[in-house]
């Protein structure tokens, strides 16, 4: 390795910076180390893909919504409030 080569990223380090990577918060140097490692390591590639799958699944969980009673109660409260 030449002196200018940054040290290789280890799997152990990569899993701890996955979110920084996805949030575009890694320095250009660490981003390069991250991507260089990914290109070489099938396990970490799988890991990253599973994080992405997890995030997408979280975003598709069914939404919550207020019960009709709670909504009606609030609308009544709003009407009262507008007459304050």
């Amino acid at each position, binding site marked *: 390795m030449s002196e200018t080569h940054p040290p290789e990223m280890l799997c152990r380090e990569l899993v701890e910076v996955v979110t920084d990577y996805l949030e575009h918060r890694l320095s250009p140097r660490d981003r390069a180390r991250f991507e260089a490692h990914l290109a070489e390591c099938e396990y970490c590639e799988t890991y990253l893909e599973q994080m992405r799958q997890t995030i997408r699944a979280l*975003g598709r969980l069914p939404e919550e919504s207020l019960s009709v009673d709670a909504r009606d109660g609030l*609308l009544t409260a709003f009407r009262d409030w507008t007459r304050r």
Partner: protein
Amino acid sequence: MGHPSSSGASSQLDHAEGTEGALLEGIREGDERVFAELMQEWSSVMLRLALVHVESRAVAEEVVQEAWLTVLRDIGRFERRSSLRTWVLGIVVNLARSRARVERRTVPLPADVAGAAVEPARFRPPDSRRWAGHWALGPVPWPLPEDALLASETRRVIVDAIAALPALQREVLVLRDLEGVGAAETCNVLGLSDTNQRVLLHRARTRVRNALEWYFDATEPT
């Protein structure tokens, strides 16, 4: 509101500068349509934030109702130093947290940001002769197409993993990943630094991923 990837018409109320002012005026002037729409639009995120701290759905609804009543009481004094949504969500969080303190369900939270998110034992120890710091027990692809992750059994795994998170991690995960709120607004709602927000998000996501991995038993010795 909804997640960016899944929201269609429901993102209409997302506050661009202009609409934000209009919404605020609408409520102040007693426009019931605006109020009803906001109540509907934000009910998912408000309920989910409340459910971080209270177990029962009925109590969560009470928290949300109380939050709206607080909004109506204080909206005349709201100075727009944050967006309307940020302010409203902050009110929910505060009410839910104090409700939890009363019910002693959650201890006031340390940020839980120390230590590794993934168990060190998953990796070859630093003194290994070869491949130190590389996987010892590596992840293998999950045996389901991605769409099947939301089928009932795996969805239950995800929902249980979320429920088991420390409160602050769960608040961040709800805002960022379940509801698609941006990082900056999440920091403002929860009073977190950008770095802490990201660490909490990372830990929460990691735990949910790990729960799925555990459920699928999807590892192999390297």
